[in-house]
């Protein structure tokens, strides 16, 4: 194995590791190749120097007893913009509630709670904030509870032309796999 190759391997390992990685860890991964620790230390020094001289968007840093690539502090502002623009994926609870509203609409909060077996107030609020669920009226029973339904945005998000495009409960069961079906 060429030294340049070793450098690349170490670079790739640091790049993929989700926390700072120590010289010992790197050494143990490469142990089968019989490299000595001081060779690895030498290459880490070179890599660090290389990234420093390159003056790019990120550098190789020694942190918490290990090595990690980190963006340069001067770009923090832009990265915050990236993070804040990120859409959070729907939680399993939110998806479940959304499915109940989609199939059972118009539906009251109490009915949703009964389906899920837990209080869904927070989840419904979250779905309304994301404009996936809206108030569609009131149920004409004592107390006149609010009725919820899905929005146009919900259809857009799931690529549906209209609600009739939702898979039916029967169709979902058909996907249960032939293992279950045959027994």
């Amino acid at each position, binding site marked *: 194995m060429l030294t340049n190759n070793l450098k690349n391997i170490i670079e790739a390992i640091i*790049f993929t*590791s*989700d*926390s700072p990685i120590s010289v010992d*860890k790197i050494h143990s991964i490469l142990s089968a190749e019989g490299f000595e620790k001081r060779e690895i230390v030498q290459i880490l020094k070179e890599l660090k120097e290389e990234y420093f001289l390159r003056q790019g968007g990120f550098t190789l840093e020694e942190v918490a007893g290990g090595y990690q*690539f980190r963006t340069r502090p001067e770009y923090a502002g832009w990265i915050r913009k990236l993070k804040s623009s990120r859409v959070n994926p729907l939680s399993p609870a939110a998806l479940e509630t959304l499915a109940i509203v989609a199939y059972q609409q118009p539906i009251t909060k109490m009915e949703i709670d009964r389906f899920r077996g837990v209080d869904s107030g927070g989840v419904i609020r979250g779905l309304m904030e994301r404009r996936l669920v809206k108030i569609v009226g009131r149920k004409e029973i004592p107390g006149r509870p609010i009725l919820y339904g899905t929005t146009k945005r919900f259809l857009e998000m799931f690529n549906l032309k209209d609600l009739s495009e939702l898979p039916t409960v029967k169709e979902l069961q058909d996907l249960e*796999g*032939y*293992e*279950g079906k045959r027994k």
Partner: protein
Amino acid sequence: MTMQYEVKLPVFEGPLDLLLYLIKKNELDIYHIPIAEITDQYLRYVEFMRTLNLDLAGEYLVLAATLLHIKSRLLLPRSEDEEDDTEDPRAELVEQLVTYQAFREAAKALDRRPQLEREVFTRGSGDVRVDEGQKSVGEWEEIGLFELIDAFQRVLKRMKPQQILEIEGEQLSLVQIISELKEKIQRAGRLMFQELFEDQKSRKRIIYTFLAVLEMVRRKMISIYQLSPLSSIYLFYEGDGIDVNE
């Protein structure tokens, strides 16, 4: 032979795979399949799988019926009033096989691409642990169900009848054999398939061992590789496996 088990086939193979496997094994031209011969072979396979009590998908029998139907139509003398260029009764099946084969190629081409978390990794996608002694994929060829059944049939053939004692009322459970096998393979890292059946004295135990291998493949506890076609088959330990009985 009455047995108290049911093993589901590794779900990855179907009747079209079996037919293509037989065509390839016999080096036949897909456009000129000798239907009588291939039908016999196909039925023998299905029959063998049934004697193992394997839970066969109904589609295997549907294709068997199709093959028998084509065979009978080929045997029929052509009636006078039929036009000369009547369609070859095999045409539809051939078309289906060719299309299926094209998609299998597409699947292989897809599999050859660098795959995320397999060949290529993004930043911060790994957590640290050193894992030694894995096979390097590339030298080894992963094998399918039908190759395995062939190998098993060879094992059975090599055994002399007097070698096999039936032990009356021997209590065997598939779960038990799976856990024994698991321990053995885990310890060794890999095991030769043929070795599993040496020193096995009862037919029932041999069959149960084979079924255990199938079940372990299905649960992804092991994978099966060989270096080249017809060379020894090896079982590799993959992990505790997944629960596939949803």
